[in-house]
């Protein structure tokens, strides 16, 4: 099963559209209010990073199922400057510092799985998943 849709992130309003899409999908999957808010916040952070630091990119949202579990997968991709020091942006204490990759540890905490691929000068792709428990 692979139901999905995506939002191009170019203006700040697109962040809102991505949030809306994410919340609807999360609700469809069956997440409760708090988890809907968490998934939406994660999408919001990812979309904001694209908007602020990459200029433009894309948020894709998929409903997924695997081994009897259902969940939601978010793929945030851009062709922006990339993140030079991934270890650093994943460290706590850097979330409030601003800059590319800000808030990544937060997104990781809000979701269950988190993977980031980034190449300086090429762009960044973040794939993050949350399962309905």
């Amino acid at each position, binding site marked *: 099963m692979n139901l999905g849709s995506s939002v191009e992130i170019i203006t700040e309003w697109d962040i809102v559209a991505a949030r809306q899409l994410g919340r609807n999908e999360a609700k469809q999957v069956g997440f409760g*209010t*708090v988890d809907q*808010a968490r998934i939406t*916040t994660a999408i919001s952070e990812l979309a904001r990073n694209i908007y602020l630091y990459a200029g433009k990119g894309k948020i894709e949202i998929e409903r997924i199922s695997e081994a009897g579990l259902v969940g939601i997968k978010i793929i945030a991709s851009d062709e922006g400057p990339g993140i030079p020091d991934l270890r650093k942006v994943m460290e*706590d*204490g850097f*979330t409030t510092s601003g800059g590319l990759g800000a808030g990544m540890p937060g997104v990781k*905490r*809000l979701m269950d799985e988190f993977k980031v691929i980034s190449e300086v000068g090429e762009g960044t792709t973040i794939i993050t998943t949350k399962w309905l428990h």
Partner: protein
Amino acid sequence: MPQEVTKQYKEIMSKYLESQSEEDLYVGQQFSRRFIEKDIAPEDVISIHKSALFELHPNLRKQVWDSLDFLIEMMIHYGLTMREHQSLVRKQEAIQMEMNVATKVQDTLLKTVEPDAEGLDVGWISQPAHQMNGDYIYFLNQENASSVAVADVIGKGIPAALCMSMIKFGMDGLQNENSSPDNVLGIINRIVEKSVDDSMFISMFYGKYNSITSTFSYASAGHEPALHFSSGTSAFTELDARGLLLGVKKEAIYDEHSVVLEEGDFVVMMTDGVTESRTENGFIEMSAIKSLLAEKKDESAQEIADYVYSELSRMQDYQLSDDFTIVIFKKKTV
């Protein structure tokens, strides 16, 4: 979500909604600790509140439920910040544990053997202001000679401690070399200059007692002067020698001087943690330190050192502002 917590929360809230009593508020607040213990995020607390309220009063207006959803949204970042904070606290605890290990390693690594030259009585004490000591004592024992290096790394804590291991290994290499004070400081200076970054300086006093001639010779790399107490005149003389701090200049030259010790004479080598001891009323005067030393002139070197330390730390309300080190070489009375 732990069902038990939700159920209990509902009961406590239900009581409060009936009574609005201080007692039920107190019970509620005690209960709130459970949320923290069980690591329940603020947004989940509101969600628990919402479900409890719904079970108790399902017919409230729609705005009430919507406003609680709004509040959940507001709390997500608080929850994240809280978790981040917890993770930083755990990290700090891990660092603290590493520090404790490092302190032990430092103690073992920097262990030095007290000399036992003929006719010489040695006493010393070194107390760190913080966890790791930035003062360092190194004894060198050779035939008919006992030497000591008293060093103070300017700056405290871990960088200072790392720096000291370097001095230690530099000194270890000296065992068979010419150990005259000016030569020793010259060698250590070159090692420090080569290996240490420009922001780190070390002051060092090096003293050598020759038990055949009863001569104490010394050199100083920008260190506090030592004090020589003469038992004959009951007076103190400062023992200072010209020389730059270690690590400043590669070709630095160190002057060497010497003094003959009579029976009952002693030499006190200190770091600035001693000479710059301060109380609320300002620095403790050098004359005060001298009179503490003179009071115990007939005791053993160790008793003199311990006494000065206990008196000075008492005057400072047991709060050392800097690492504190004293070494005393005393010529025994026969």
